[in-house]
Each structure stands twice: as structure tokens, then as C-alpha cells.
């Protein structure tokens, strides 16, 4: 296949809007191809397929979210076609619709960001029903019994082995921490409030969990950094915890949906932006990457392993509340939520996300997410892109929001606008790089032929909403913003070694309700897999 005469944005190879031809063969980008198929990309924008570093698309949590929201589904029904399955969309889309909508946006790889290890099989089952995109998932480790036990006993080698074992057993990709220590304390209805609080019943602090797992991450040579949802998420004044977390270590650390952790103020009445402080720290410290978790006004379904935070959110809103604690490993909570322009706190949250995008200087270290479906559904990414690329666009929306925003944030003082090159960085090049996916996020020779081709119009939102073409593994799967062909993507996982020691097996037989032999995810759950090796 030849993609002819397109305007190419390929930041990992330093290509910024050059007119050139791209050749594809056998699912890869090649130097030249004899195949006859030609896509005339004259006047079109060619980018690598999008790579989403943090989204909730498969598994027990999102599926409870789907169960919880029939009132949502009926607002967005998706009929079947000859080539696509039916489903529903809105805030908690069904698996098929998730795959189709990501592909239509030009996204080709997505990470499911929070998986209870014992529920890993569930995630892989849903992955098999999530078409079009490549997938990976991050098992939750920040409140795992073995992690707490080995840190308490100062058994670093055992901890390292356990983490490697767990990645293998779950077919996971990265170490995920959510409110480290706090979720274990929540199992007794408590929480932790600082990095140095003790976890209930353990002589361990969140700081120790974060630093030890970050060290494990580097010693195992995992492709991604530790992926951290900080303590005190959502709480006024939490930007200090965030900075403390980042400065607790020198290893690589990815702070996820950092918007929810960049709050100043002492309570809801004095709620304000802590984004300048957080951005300032990140600008000076290269070991940190982050994704934003940008708020988009409208309906959302909040869901996280952070049980205590979800309880707080239930108390704040009075909305229906799900809590689901998972033996030995983690927990979860779900609460529907509406972000309103005229609500001062919501409007400040919206502005903080944009401040972070605009104040963090290096686009290679700040990525586009909405923490789908927490701050809004992923298919609103084009909206966020339009706010980043146009000061005027965000000014228009700013004018509609609560007027307190200008006082409590610095957004109205910022006039930076993202270029197309920078958009390509924060949506694909940098996320692929941060995940250590060498064949994704670029269009160099040997890269996976995952390509998004857009028609650039005056309206950036419209330009990015429906890709003109999407090529996945070398085949055209989207044409004129519609699915043209079904496709089953790959599942990436990391083989870091690790063995099930007698001690691990013994603890399983004592405290789990599942036999150890039935715990690891079997081969049958990975119809198309690719194993990524460690450094």
C-alpha cells in the first residue's frame, strides 16, 4: 500500500508536516512497496495511530458501571450493520462500541488502566470482544497483600519476584498503584491521608509502597514506568501530596489523571488551582511523566480502585454508589457524576486540566486523557484538542463557565496554543514512547502500520472527530469516519520472569478463595498476543 502525498506528522522521527509518501506491507511500514493499492492523501494529514495511555474499557469495574447506568445507554444506541455489532455508547460504552469509536477517532492502541489481578481473566474476555484496537492492561499492586507484606518484612527480592510473577499470571503490562495503602485501610472503612501514614494493620506507609515498587520497576526493566494514582485524589489541597509523591523518588514515575491531584485550597469553599506548582515541579524534574484526565462538561461515570474517594464522592453528590472490595488485592468504587460549567468546583477542575497541558513545557511528558469515563468519555478528545490548539475556543468556553474560575486559576493568562506537531506528540508519539512500545506511535521503517489520516478543516474538533482513513496492521479499517472492516487487535503483555514460590502458594491456600492453580490467566484468553520483553 502507498499513502501518497500526505502531510505527515511523525514526531518520533522529527517529521513536522512534511509532504511525503508512506509505504505499507505485511502490516508494517516499509521503505517501498510493490502493492498496487494507493491512498491519495493529498491535502490530508497523516499521523501514527493514536495511543491512549489510560482508559477504563474492560473488566469488572467498567462492567458494573455499565450495569449501573441503563439511563445512560438509552441516550446513545448503536444499531448493528453488516460488518459491525450493535451496542450502546454514552459514558460507559459496550465493548464493541468502545473498539469502533476509538478506531473512528484514529486511535489504534489503548491501555486499560486498573485491573484487580483476580479479575484479569474478565478483562481478557472483554478484550476479545473489543475489536479494532490493540490493548494492554495494568494490574493493581499498590494495596496487594504480598506487596505490603514483603515491604513490611524488608524482603525486596521477594517483592521483585512477586511483581514479575503477577505480571505473568495476569498477562499484565505495567505496575499500577491506586491510592497506595489507602484502599487496604478502606477495607476497615479508613483511609491514609499522607505519604507517611501507616496502612491499617501494617507497618508500611504509602511512601514505602511507591518507592519500593518504583525500584522494582527499574530493576525488572519494565517498558513503562510505575503508573500512579496518587493518595488524596480529589481532595482540596492535594497538590502537595502530588509533589511529595513525585519527589519521593528519582526513578521514572507516571502520575495519572494528574488534574484530579493538582488542587489547592483548604476546603471546597477555597478550592483553587495547584496546577502552576505541579507544572513547575514537572518542568524541573525529568523523571516525571503525566496524563491529564481533562474534565469535559457533561455526564460522566466515575470509577476507580480508590474506594474511599468514591465513598466521599457518593457523600458529596448523593448519587447511587457501588463499592466492590477484592480479596487480598484491591477495591473499587463507582458513582455517576455530571460536570457542570456553572459549578465553580467543576469549572476550576476543567481549567486546571488545561493549565497543566499549557504550563508543562515539554509535550513529551504530558498526555491527553480524560481518564475515560471519569472526567468524560474518550470520544470527546477532539474537543480537548480544539481547546489546546485555539486560545479563542477555550476563551469561548471559559466565558460560559462560572466567573470565579479566572480568580482561582491562571487559565485566562495563558495564550499558548498547541501545534499539530504537539498534538501528535501528546496523543500518540509520547504515549507510545512512555509505554515502551517501540513499534507504535511513529511511521518509521519497521513500525506497525497503524496510521490515522485526517482531513484538516477550520474546526479542529471536527477534524479529529472522524478520521478519513484508519489503517490498522496494514489494512484500511475506517473510511470516512466509519468502520470499513472488522479487526481483532493484539494484547500486549510483559514477561518479566518471576516464579510462584512455595510461600506464595501457601498464602494462596490460606487466604484466597481461589486455588492457586486456577489463578493465572490461561493461554486460551489471549487469542492474539504479543509478549514484550524487559530491558
Amino acid at each position, binding site marked *: 500500500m502507498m499513502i501518497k502525498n500526505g502531510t505527515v506528522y511523525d514526531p518520533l522521527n522529527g517529521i513536522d508536516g512534511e509532504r511525503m509518501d508512506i509505504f505499507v506491507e505485511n502490516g508494517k511500514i516499509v521503505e517501498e512497496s510493490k502493492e498496487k493499492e494507493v491512498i491519495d492523501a493529498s491535502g490530508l494529514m497523516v499521523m501514527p495511530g493514536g495511543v491512549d495511555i489510560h482508559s477504563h474499557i474492560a473488566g469488572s469495574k467498567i462492567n458494573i458501571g455499565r450495569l*449501573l447506568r441503563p439511563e445512560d445507554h438509552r441516550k446513545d*444506541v*448503536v444499531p448493528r450493520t453488516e460488518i459491525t455489532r450493535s*451496542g*450502546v455508547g454514552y459514558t460507559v460504552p459496550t465493548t464493541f462500541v468502545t473498539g469502533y469509536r476509538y478506531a473512528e477517532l484514529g486511535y489504534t492502541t489503548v491501555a486499560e488502566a486498573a485491573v484487580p489481578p483476580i479479575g484479569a481473566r474478565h478483562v481478557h474476555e472483554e478484550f476479545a470482544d473489543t475489536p479494532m484496537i490493540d490493548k494492554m492492561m495494568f494490574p493493581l499492586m499498590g494495596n496487594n497483600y504480598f506487596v505490603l507484606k514483603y515491604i513490611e518484612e524488608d524482603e525486596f527480592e521477594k517483592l521483585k519476584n512477586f511483581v514479575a510473577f503477577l505480571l505473568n499470571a495476569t498477562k499484565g503490562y505495567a505496575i499500577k498503584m491506586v491510592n497506595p495503602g489507602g484502599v487496604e485501610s478502606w477495607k476497615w472503612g479508613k483511609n491514609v491521608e499522607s505519604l507517611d501514614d501507616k496502612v491499617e494493620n501494617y507497618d508500611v506507609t504509602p511512601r514505602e509502597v511507591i518507592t519500593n515498587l518504583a525500584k522494582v520497576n527499574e530493576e525488572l526493566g519494565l517498558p513503562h514506568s510505575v503508573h500512579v494514582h496518587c493518595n488524596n485524589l480529589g481532595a482540596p489541597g492535594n497538590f502537595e501530596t502530588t509533589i511529595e509523591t513525585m519527589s519521593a523518588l528519582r526513578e521514572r514515575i507516571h502520575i495519572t489523571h494528574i488534574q484530579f491531584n493538582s488542587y489547592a485550597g483548604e476546603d471546597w469553599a477555597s478550592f483553587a488551582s495547584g496546577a502552576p506548582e505541579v507544572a513547575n515541579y514537572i518542568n524541573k524534574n525529568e523523571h516525571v511523566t503525566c496524563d491529564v484526565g481533562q474534565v469535559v462538561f457533561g455526564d460522566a461515570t466515575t470509577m476507580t480502585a480508590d474506594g474511599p474517594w468514591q465513598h466521599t464522592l457518593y457523600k458529596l453528590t448523593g448519587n447511587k454508589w457501588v*463499592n466492590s472490595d477484592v*480479596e487480598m488485592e484491591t477495591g473499587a468504587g463507582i458513582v455517576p457524576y455530571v460536570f457542570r460549567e456553572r459549578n465553580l468546583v467543576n469549572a476550576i477542575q476543567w481549567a486546571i486540566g488545561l493549565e497543566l497541558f499549557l504550563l508543562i513545557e515539554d509535550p513529551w511528558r504530558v498526555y491527553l486523557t480524560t481518564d475515560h469515563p471519569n472526567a468524560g468519555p474518550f470520544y470527546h478528545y477532539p474537543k480537548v484538542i480544539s481547546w489546546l490548539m485555539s486560545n479563542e475556543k477555550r476563551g469561548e468556553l471559559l466565558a460560559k463557565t462560572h466567573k470565579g474560575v479566572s480568580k482561582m486559576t491562571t487559565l485566562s493568562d495563558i495564550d499558548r496554543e498547541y501545534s499539530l506537531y504537539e498534538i501528535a506528540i501528546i496523543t500518540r508519539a509520547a504515549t507510545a514512547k512512555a509505554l515502551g512500545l517501540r513499534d507504535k506511535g511513529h511511521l518509521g521503517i519497521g513500525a506497525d502500520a497503524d496510521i490515522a489520516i485526517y482531513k484538516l478543516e477550520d474546526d479542529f474538533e471536527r477534524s479529529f472527530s472522524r478520521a478519513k482513513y484508519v489503517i490498522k496492521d496494514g489494512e484500511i479499517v475506517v473510511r470516512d469516519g466509519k468502520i470499513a472492516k472488522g479487526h481483532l487487535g493484539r494484547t500486549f503483555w510483559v514477561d518479566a520472569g518471576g516464579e510462584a514460590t512455595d510461600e506464595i502458594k501457601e498464602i494462596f491456600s490460606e487466604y484466597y478463595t*481461589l486455588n492457586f*492453580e486456577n489463578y493465572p490467566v490461561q493461554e486460551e484468553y489471549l487469542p492474539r498476543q504479543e509478549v514484550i520483553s524487559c530491558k
Partner: protein
Amino acid sequence: MIHEHVVCPFCGCLCDDLEVTVEDGKVVNTKRGCIIAKSKFMNHDRDRAKPMLRKDDELIGVSIEEAMDRAAEILRSADHPLIYGLSSTECDAQRAATELAELVGGTIDNTASVCHGPTLVSVQAVGVVKCTLGEIKNRADLVIFWGCNPGEAHLRHFLRYSVLSKGLFTQEGRKDRTVIVVDVRENASTKLADIFLKIRPNSDFEIISALRAAIKGHEVGDVAGVADGTIKEVAEKMKSCKFGVLFFGLGLTMSKGKHMNIDAALSLVRDLNDYTKFAINSMRGHFNVAGANEVLIWQTGYPYSVNFSRGYPRYNPGEFSAVDVLSRKECDAALIIAADPLSSFPLRASEHLAKIPTIVIDPKNSMTSLVAEVVIPTAMVGVECEGTAYRMDCIPIRLRKVVEPEFPSDKEVLEEIIEKVKAG
């Protein structure tokens, strides 16, 4: 040959520690499972179905190919086919059944519709505070069973999960726990209780509401025959425990009030979390009814009673539930898989099922297969073929295969029918 760590494909407990001995392709012994598990494995080859078609009002033996051809023909020519059952099969078959329902524009429903359907509706209204069974094993010091009787229905529940089990913070097992059973009569489970609260039939809603008021400090008085002092005592135990759990079954979901009872119970447990840690878990019956809900949710957004006649999923229990679709004579064909509605449905629904062309896919003969137009035998899931099942707390476990099947699996049969419908 001895198979270890085998998962029992009978009830929602999904015990995964069975030892099954197979000699010459036959199961000769099982260890560790309950008597039902033993019976399921030892008798798996008894009363097996054969491929049959109804000709001149009589079921005649045919090839399985012929039976599948006829099934596809029935579904293709039907205006409104119903697919029902699914709780005693594995998830890949459930996935295929959903695809088939979408393809033929029919209604799909699973047995939750006649057991924990009200629970699912209530979760949609109220939310739920739940946990996996290991949390209960490791932490619970107060265990309440309401309208359920695990002593006879989930035989190893007490032992493995809820009462006798020892865990991280319950090293003494039974001694560390207070057990309350609420029921309308004495049964195998009430014998185990520290407190047996015997209530009048159909008074659940009032008593749960009274408890909810009492934990908030309101004076309630005697309610539905239960003394004020008893309500206060139980409410106090609920508030003062460290980790409580309320298990409930069909005694709550299918007695008067139905989802109102569950709304009240879910709200009670939610409110208890203002004082302590408390969870509420449903006692699911068939081994993969939870999976039937999970699969339908991830494919359509809804747990049961889903209709595809407009090309996209619509959900409405009461409108698209199997009993109602049949009783109102709305469907003109039915595919029954991994369930036996004739043994439990109301007469009016069963009569319609007998009248329309009904396809039964099942490893064994059943009441429903007696009135079927087409009978398609399949491998027994968890004995003769693998697959995923979701435990009552929604933990997914892979079922094992211990003997070779004579017939294809549910999944293979459904996929074959899908191909035939598409080709036709």
C-alpha cells in the same frame, strides 16, 4: 487419571478444589466436593440427549447436522424468536447466543429473570456495596443470611467462604463470627445461627426498613410481629461489628415486594457504612448465571431481558423477560439453552413454548425437550469441555474438561447455527 483443582459446574460457589478420578474415559470418583458435585460428575453420562426432530408429533432421532439445519431454518423464518436460559453454560456460548439474538433480531433473556432479576434492577436504582467472598472469609465478624439457605442450596458456602472459614483477621473461624439467619421457617441454615430471626412471610420489606430506621436512632416499636427489643438488638449488632455482610437469596427477591425488598436491603447496607464496614452479596444459584449477566452487560449494556428487534439492544424486564414474552404469546419461536423453563415457568408460558417451534440445546433430556421441535445435544460444560464461569461474586474461573465429549459444545453448536442463519 486423577484431575486436581477441578471446578464444580453446579452452583454459584464454583468450588475449585475437587479431585476427579477418571478411568477408561469414565468418571469413577470425586473427592472434596459436596454430594451434589459428586452426583453431577458421577452421573454426567446418564439420561443424555440425542439429536432429534419432531415429525408427525413425535421426536425422531436424526443427525446433529440435520437438527442444526432445522434450528437455523426456524430462527431465520421467525418474526420474533426468543433465546432463553444460558445460566448453566460457559461464557463463550453466552457470547455466541447474544450474537445470534442480535443477528435474528430476537429477544434474549437468562434465568436471572426468574431469580435475581429484582436484585439487578435494584442495583441499577440504588448501587451496591459488595465484596468478593475472600473478603468475608478474611474479615467478616458478622454474617447475616436473609431469605437464603446455603445449608441446603450452597452446601460448601459456610465452609469455604462465610462461616467456618479462617482467614487473615478471622483466625478462629466460627468463633470469630456472629451468625444471624432471617427466614420464615427453620431449616438447615438456621441451626447454625447464633440468632435465628423468624419472620412472617412477606414481612421482609417492613423489617428491613425498621432496621434501617433503628440504626439511624429512630424508635420503631414492634414491626410485623418482631419485637422492638429484637430489632434494636440486631441493629446494634450491625452497627457495632467490624466487618458485616448480608447474604440474601430468593426468599427476598421473589417474595412480596420483590425489588422493593432489595432496594431496602441495599440501602440498609449502604447506610451501615456510615458506622462500620458492611457488604451485601447475592447468593446466585446456577454456576454461571453471573457470567450470563456479565457477558450480556459487556455486549449490550444490560444484564437480562434484552430485545434486538430495532437492531440495537433495548432492555425492559416485564416486557422482554421470557415469562412475559411467552405468556403474552409474543414470540413465534424459541431457542432454549442450558436451562429447563418447563420445570419452573407458569403454565401459560409453558403452553406457548409447547405450541411454537422450540429448539432445545442441552447435554441432558429435560422437561422442555419433551415439547421441543428440535433437540440438539451438547457436551457438558465443566465436565466434557472447558470455558469460563463467573462465581456468585463475579470472580471468573476457567472450568475444566475431564472426559471426552460425544457431542460438540454449546459454543460450537451456536456458532454453527449462526453460520447457517447467515448463509440462508
